[in-house]
Every structure is written in C-alpha cells, then in structure tokens.
C-alpha cells in the first residue's frame, strides 16, 4: 500500500506543487486547506506523515500541530513544517508545538522527498 501524506497549505499552488512532487515520488497525497480542514482530513485519511504550512487562516500551523498532538492516536505521526519563514523563534515555536522537522520553502523536490522518507515510519 502506498504511504500516505497529508499536506496542509492554504495556497492552492503549494497544494498542487506538493501533490505533484509527492505523487511523483510514489506517495498517496491528501490535501487540506487550513488547520481545521487538516484535522478533519487527518481523521479521515490516517496519513503516515503530515506536511504543514504555518501561516494559514482559520487555524494556523502551530495550532494545528498542537491539536494533532492532543489526539493520542496521532501524537506520533511525524509532522514536517514547510514554510517560507525561517526565523529561529518560529522554529522554536513549531518544535514546542510538536513538529518533527522544518523545511524552508521553496522546496527542492528531491530534498522534500528525502526529508519525507527520513521521517516516514
């Protein structure tokens, strides 16, 4: 069975880019538009890895990660943060929210795939 990745990003372009890249790398991809949508999709799709943006409407990435970690059935799902922001305090916040890793946009398809494989259970 294909490994499943949930991507959470409010930008349609990013969602399509991620889908394109990850599908090419042989993953099944589920997309969500913001944190709240992400929580719903997480429950529906039971992904192996989650990739999330930080800056999103409705529920931002930090809150999303915190919420995911509150479900005990999901608190071990690796969550990679994919964002244009690279400020150390943001990273710190993502980490304390429960993120597994941090990738800075724009992403290189190869590196992204490698990063995903690295955390893939």
């Amino acid at each position, binding site marked *: 069975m294909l490994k499943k990745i949930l991507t959470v990003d*409010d*930008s*349609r*372009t*990013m969602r*399509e*880019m991620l*889908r*394109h890249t990850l599908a090419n790398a042989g993953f099944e991809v589920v997309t969500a*538009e*913001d944190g*709240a*949508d992400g*929580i*719903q999709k997480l429950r529906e799709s039971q992904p192996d890895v989650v990739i999330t*943006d930080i*800056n*999103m*409407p*409705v*529920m931002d990435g930090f809150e999303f990660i*915190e*919420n995911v*970690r*509150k*479900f*005990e059935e999901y*608190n*071990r*799902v*690796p*969550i990679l943060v994919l*964002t*244009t922001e*690279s400020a150390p305090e943001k*990273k710190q916040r993502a*980490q*304390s*929210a*429960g*993120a*597994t*890793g*941090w*990738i*800075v*946009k*724009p*992403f*290189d398809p190869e*590196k992204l795939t*490698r*990063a995903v494989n*690295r*955390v893939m*259970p």
Partner: protein
Amino acid sequence: MSLDDIKETFFAECADQMSELETGLHEIQSDGPDMDTVNAVFRAVHSIKGGAGAFGYNALVSFAHVFENALDVIRNDLSQVNEARMDLLLRSVDVLSDVIEAERTGSEPEDSSGLAGELETAFGLGGAHEEEDEEEINFAPVMIDLEAFDAVEAPSGRTFRISFAPHASLYLKGHDPLRFFRELGDMGTLSVTCDLEALPKLNDLTPDESYLKWQIDFETERDRDDIEAVFDWVDGECVLSIEEIGGSPPDGDGENLDAFLQALEESGDDAAPADLVDIDDFGQDPETASADAPAPANPVAELVDTIETAVGANASGNGDQGDDGNDNAGAGSKAEKKEVKKASQTIRVESEKVDRLINLMGELVINQAMLAERIGQAGFGSASPTGLALVELQNLTREIQSGVMAIRAQPVKPVFMRMSRVIREVCSATGKRALLELEGEHTEVDTTVIEGLIDPLTHMIRNAVDHGIEDPETRQARGKPAQGTVKLSAYHSSGRIVIEINDDGAGINRERVLSKAIEKGIVARDAKLSDDDIDNLIFAPGFSTAETITDVSGRGVGMDVVRQSIQALGGRVHIASRPGEGSLFSMTLPLTLAVLDGMIVKEAGQTLVLPVSAVLETATLKPGDVYTIGKNNRVVKMRNSLIPIIDVGRQLGFSERRDDYTRGTILVVEGGKNGLGAFLVDSIEGQQQVVIKSLESNYQRVPSIAAATILGNGQIALILDCDHIVSHQSGEPGPEIIQSMAG
C-alpha cells in the same frame, strides 16, 4: 496535472491574493489596522512569495520578501501604521501586481529595487536580506552520500561516541529513535547499544515514560556539526552528548546498517512498552517478534492490554505527563469539531461551463414558452392537468434560472478595489490628491456585466480625478479639503444595478463644453439645451475637449467610448454636475445579460416587450383622465401626480398618433432618474420570461430599444429601453437623438 497547469493555478491564485491584499490594505487605511486584516494581508503576500519561489520567479520572490517583511513590522505592532507607510504599501501593491504580470507573461520585470529600498527604509528593515539558509532542511541537512556506503569497507574518518537519552516528550513529536540512527547510518558507520538499565519491571512500568538510552559509536568523515544537525530538532527533548573518541571504533569493526537495524529492532521489542511506541512498529514480523520476545506469548497480550488501558485512562483525564497541551485533550477535540464544521465548502468551476449552462437555460426558457403556446393552442385551459403541469414547469424553470444566475453573480468589490490603484496612478501623474470611498461594494451582479464594467469604470474614474478634482492649492483656495474624494457606490434599483461615481471636484465647465460641441458640429449653434443636456454632451461621439487631453485620461478615447461600452451591456450612463461642487456619473446596468421578465404588449401590430421590473401599474383611461399641457403634451393624473402619456408607437415612429387615448392600455413605467411615463399601447398580451439577444452585436445600437428576443411562437420582438423612452418623450430631441440622426 503538469507543472504548467500548476503555474496557471499559481497566477490565478495570485490574482485572488492581490485582490485580498488590496482590499485588506484599503480597509486598514479607512478603518485602521486590526489583527485579522493585517494577518490576511500578510498571508496574501506570503503565499505569493511561497509559490513564486517554487517556480523560481526570483524578481517576484525578492520583492514579495521585502513587502512581507514590511507587513511583518505592522503585524508585530499595529501602532506602526501611519499614512506615509500605508501609501508606500499601496504603491507596493501596484508594483507587486506588475511584477506578477511580468513573470506571467515572461517579460522582463521592471526594476522594483527602488521601491524595495524605500520599504526597507520606511519600515526599518535593516537592508541586508537575511539570506538565512533558505535552501536548508533544517532538522536534517544531510545529503545521501553514496560514497559513505562505499567507504564502509575502509573507514578513514573520526569516531564519535554519542549518547542519546530521549525524554518522553520526544516521542510525542513524531520522532522515532530509529530514524536518527538511520540518518547517521547515511553518514558513516555506527554501532548502537541500547541501555536497558533504567527499564523497570513490567508491573512498575509507566507506559508513557521513557526508559531507554542508547550509546552510538559512530565513525564518519563528517564533523561534529553534521552530527548535531541530525539531532537539531530534538534539542531539549533528550539528553545528548557527542564526544570524539578518535581513531577507529572500539569494537565491531564497521558493523553494517542492517546489523545495526536488527540490533535496534531487538532492543525495540523489549522497549516497546517503555517508549510509547506502537507495538506494530516493531512487530513488522509478528512471529519473529513474539519468538524473540523475552517473555512467553501470554504476557505480551497482557502487556498490550495494560498499555491500552493505561493509555485510555491517560487520555480520559490526567495528562500529568510533562508535556504541555496534553491536559485538555478532550476539550481540544470538541473545539476542533466545531471549527471543522465552519470551514466553508467551495469549488472552482471554469466559467465556460457556467456559460454553457446559461445558454442552455436560455434555450429552455424559449422552449418552455413555445410549449406554453402550443398547449394554449391545443385548447388546454390553465386549470387543466396539462395547464397545471405547465405552471409547475414554469416555476421550476424560474428556480433553475435564478440558481444558475446566482452562480455567476459576483460582488462588484474586486472591480471597485482595482479603482483605488487607478486613482493612485492618476494622482501621482497629475500631482492631485484623491481618496477612493466605496459604498455597496458587496452588491452582486452577473460576472459578464462585471467584466464589461472594468474598462468604462477605469476611464470614468480617471476622468473624475483628471478633469474633476482640482489640484490641492486650488481646492484649498476654494475652501475644500486638499484631498479630493471620489465615491464609488453600487446598489440595486428596480431590477438593475446602479453604479455611481461621485467626485467633489469642480464639476463640468458647461460653457466650454457647449462651445466645443458647437465648434465640432455636434449641436446646432442655436440649439436650446438644458444644463443637463450640456453635461451629457461629453458622451457625444467626436467630443473630446482637445486641450484637456492628458496622458491620464486622454489615451485617444473619449467618453463616447465609455457610453458605447456601457450601452453594449444594456446599460445607460448619465452625468449630473454641480458647478464647483462636483459631478455624479451614474450608470445603470442590467443584473444579467441573459434573461428578463418581460411584459408582452401589442402596439400597432407589433409585439413589444417591457421589463416587468419597470412597470408599476397598468390601467385603462377614461376620457376625463387625460389633460393637455402646453401644445401637444398629454398627461394623465395618477398616483397623485401628472404623468406624461407616451404614445409608444408614435414615439418609436411606426404608427400615427392616435386620437382617442381611451382606446388602449396605459402602463405606468419607471424611467430611472427621468421619472415616470405612462406608456400607451393597444393591449397587454401577458408576461413571460424572455431571453435577451443583443441587437447591437448583430445590427447596431437603436435608440429606445434595449435588445430583442424570441417569443414562444418563434416571433422576434423588441425589448424597449424604458428609461430612454421616458427621458426623450418631450418631443425635444436630446443629445442622443441628435447623434443617431447625425450618425
């Protein structure tokens, strides 16, 4: 989906983000900053930058980056907003939009570094772009180095001893010790020992506590930084020490990765309960797992039970376990459920598909009218089952129609927002100062109308600032605020949308307009024109006051082009001016270009259609109802006022004036700003929905006729332009009649 498709998506999204950005900044400018708006604005730029980076649009990325940083200053402290900064941000919107356009068309983007510099100065961004390891995967900046595997045979690097003791919280962040080892394995050779010393007896074991430690002897050509980078993301989640022990690994000369993994799996089996790791993770091969397990099969099952109960108990309340956020797991998930519900469901549909639906709907309306006609001819009464079924069909058609139209209806806001840029551009070109004020920007109208509106509106706004608003000194001298205001408003009125542009400028210079019009031969030298007629001369073809042509509103097109494009949409434009106080341009447009509810009337053998929305009431006249005013003007007293009687057939020039006004029917029609008119026709045939077919695109513009339609019997009928007829009923030809005679 190919990359090109994604690019298209990107630019479509850019357009959305730009309108979001512009709207937001505008709101901040008029209502002051609030966090939600600032966040939305920031996100818009952020998103554009993110997508641009993915496609390597470097010019766009670098400008968006500075823009974003500027917005970040405001995001961090709302009091940082001031007028000069807002101006700069709004100008940045224009530049950003230009850069996007350049990237889209593949042309060379104009140099935006000047404005970027201004932004940096104004927002104290410290100039230097923090090129902070943008490309890096921070938690694991490691390349898969095949040579490292080759080198396994003859390791020639340094040896480190790493001791790694995860806290329980590490497991709660999606980490798995195995992955760190795997990653190290990519960089060199390692031997891993699991330290089980802290592992308590099963009965004393707390399932979500961490008991295991590892010692890794790692031989690599990389340096300490690379190793630290592997553990970068678990900084604070574990006790880590890395110590260089030099030479060659102490034992197990270069064990390969598989051996290490196996070792880990074995240790993992024992450790399973301790580190909250799913049993499945280790039991990839359950048989081996149970065979290798130190205890018999039964205790394993018991262990699973223990874990489940313990975890369950833990989740249901006392999250006393070190990590934040676990305490209110229950409450949290409830809140999420609500949030999830709120997320609205939208889909994006190509407009072609909707257009096809609208066309089909038009055909359906015609078809239904034909069916109704046939059913009538066949002698079925309206109360017969067939008649009732027809009524039901009509109701359904109507509902489908309004449903389909609602799909295409859009608020005028995006178009209005664009105008703020137009104003800024004109202001900077002319040195004038003007502010755009919006009203009713949420008014909805069909997209085709909106699209057709952009050009005329742009031109009129330009015109309003360029010709209407005075320069700041003049304004102050006249006791007006230095900054002019252009108010753009939209509202619905009798089934149409009205868009008004109201400026507080100088108004129209009637003397000059009139002399120009006479000079150009647009009106006769001795023509008696009202102020209103003179104002509206600016829309006459061939009228453009040459000396006022500027870079801004010149561009070789006059206001007649504006009038034509509005008329092409089935609309009208009118100007009212108050000298010294300003001008009011108003346009009325149909809400849709597809169908209308028509009142079918007969006049002198012709079938005509009036929009039902314009008809206020119908009546038959008695002899005493008609009064004569002046020479030939007949009026009827209705609704406590005298309404001019308009003999439609005669006004349109296809029948003689009738002598007896009591033969025939009166329709009291609302003629927009021109007041009421009592249209006199032979008879009313009924009401039906008609599909609007433009005359203009196939024939030419005909005064007093809005469009044509096809009736149920296949006959073609003309749809009357009621406003035009009412405004020209006096017999004294207005400018438009003059034009049509001239052209």
